[in-house]
């Protein structure tokens, strides 16, 4: 039987009175990107720390490639790489020295370390700065170096805890490309993020976590379908038409259509957007409703998160900083 890249079963972890993880169960297939999505304080970091052997579960168990992290942590450590939101690099050493040092601590042969360090520096676009002290690096460079050190042993499972938090859009795109490349070489990845678009873009499977519990799980498409399909949005030319319009389209909707007075937009949740669109237009035309704009869209992960947790991801971002590092 092929084991899972990583798995958690009924994992509970308390910090004092706070339950950071409150019965988390999830399984990730090998060779895929598993996205863990949730606001600050949801328990994402705690779960990553547990899977990377930094903290043990109070109850339940966590495994990486079938090996229990609490029972055989050193076996797990040989198979994993960890990179996080705080670049865990040594300021006083150069980029090359940082990667080399970690290679030694994985007990790789010197010639392998030398060769791979050079490859990593080049692929992470750090070759020019390789022999400069990390103190002179920008935030994005540090983050890339941090990722590089976690890749030196070619880990089978890579844990990336909010790798792009606080990075500028360009650097984020660069990192996305590197992450995709990693998966193409067979690495399994756990990616935690607060950015829905990031999970949407990269993850093969997503678990939404809030208050230490997995509250939804599936592919991006599956999660979106939970909202009941698509939304047809049309903007009215004349605000007086709103009642008329709502009545006209009500029979097409799977949920009650809504009207936003500020944007003069009617949102019409339907099962199959493109299939219903033509009929919606005919119905509105018959009711003599004049339209300024018309669109169909699938719900974003933002909508999914909002509907599951009752709050937007952004709302929860500013507050309670998650305990712990990396």
């Amino acid at each position, binding site marked *: 039987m092929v084991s899972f890249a990583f798995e958690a079963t009924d994992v509970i972890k308390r910090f004092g009175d706070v339950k950071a993880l409150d019965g988390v169960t999830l399984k990730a297939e090998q060779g895929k990107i598993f996205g863990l999505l949730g606001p600050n304080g949801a328990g994402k970091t705690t779960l990553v720390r547990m899977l990377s052997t930094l903290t043990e579960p109070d109850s339940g168990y966590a495994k990486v490639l079938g090996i229990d992290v609490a029972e055989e942590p050193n076996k797990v*450590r040989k198979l994993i790489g*960890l990179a996080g939101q*705080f670049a865990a690099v040594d300021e006083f050493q150069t980029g090359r020295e940082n990667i080399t040092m970690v290679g*030694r601590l994985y*007990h790789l042969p010197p010639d392998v370390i030398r060769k791979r360090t050079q490859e990593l520096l080049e692929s992470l676009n750090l070759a020019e700065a390789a022999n400069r002290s990390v103190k002179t690096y920008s935030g994005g460079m540090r983050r890339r170096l941090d990722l590089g050190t976690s890749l030196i042993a070619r880990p089978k499972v890579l844990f990336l805890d909010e790798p792009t938090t606080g990075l500028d859009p360009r650097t984020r795109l660069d990192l996305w490309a590197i992450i995709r490349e990693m998966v193409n070489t067979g690495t399994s990845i756990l990616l935690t993020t607060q950015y829905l678009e990031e999970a949407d873009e990269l993850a093969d499977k997503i678990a939404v976590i809030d208050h230490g519990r997995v509250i939804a799980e599936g592919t991006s498409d599956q999660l979106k379908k939970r909202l009941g399909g698509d939304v047809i949005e049309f903007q009215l030319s004349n605000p007086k038409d709103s009642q008329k319009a709502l009545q006209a389209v009500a029979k097409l909707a799977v949920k009650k259509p809504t009207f936003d007075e500020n944007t003069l937009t009617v949102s019409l949740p339907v099962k199959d957007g493109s299939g219903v669109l033509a009929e919606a237009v005919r119905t509105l035309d018959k009711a003599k409703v004049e339209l300024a704009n018309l669109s169909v869209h699938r719900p974003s992960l933002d909508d999914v998160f909002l509907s599951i947790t009752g709050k937007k991801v952004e709302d929860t971002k500013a507050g309670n900083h998650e305990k712990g590092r990396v």
Partner: protein
Amino acid sequence: MYEAVQNEIADIWTMTKRNLIRYTRLPQLLFFSSIQPIMFLTLFNFVFGGAIGSHGAAPGGKYINFLLPGILAQVVLFGAVNTGIGLADDMNKGIIDRFRSLPMSRAAVMGGRTVADTIRNLVVTSILLGFGTLYGFRFMNGVLNAFIMVAIMLLFGFAFSWISAVIGLTLKDPETAQLAGFLFVFPFTFASAAFLPTSTMPGWLQAFANNQPVTYVSNAAREFALGVPAPDGTMLKLFLFLGGIFLIFIPLAIRQYKRSV
């Protein structure tokens, strides 16, 4: 088994190099940390030297001969405080989590730090011996015994580095670790035979001063460097003390390191 030991040593050495690189990239750190003991040596020698030298307590009639071993004890002890400061600093940064997630020895982070601080202590000790010689200090008991004295001093600092490591790993804040470290070493250095004989201290203080490690190591160092016999049992008590420190504080440091945040 053999491979495990080999990895353990390799990891400690890798971490030692990491800390030594820090000193070479920050030469001002080594510079200023040498200035302080030179200042102590200079001030003590010329402020107290005149009064003490004539009392006959000083071997060879020179206070510098009495003082230098004591100053060295103080220097390695102060150097040991750095271990805690450095580890507390690491604990504040993501890098300690990186180390803890690697298949490396659980003792290497502290081992590398204590060994690096011992090497640093060797450098500062050599500088002080140079200045001491300039002020008139002479080894009076042969070359071998001179080396043994230096070795004892370094071992002493190494042992206290492990106490300091536990302080740093527990407090997790470099400034607090510095304050706590010095608070801990100050009474040991001053209420001791490091700078002056304990015989003029009040009885209650003598009871402490005569029975604590800085006095043991200062007296032991004087025996090896100058041939002045230390009180009976000094070496035994010193090594029991150091052995006790290793036995208690190495496991304690590893426990604090492993402990999840």
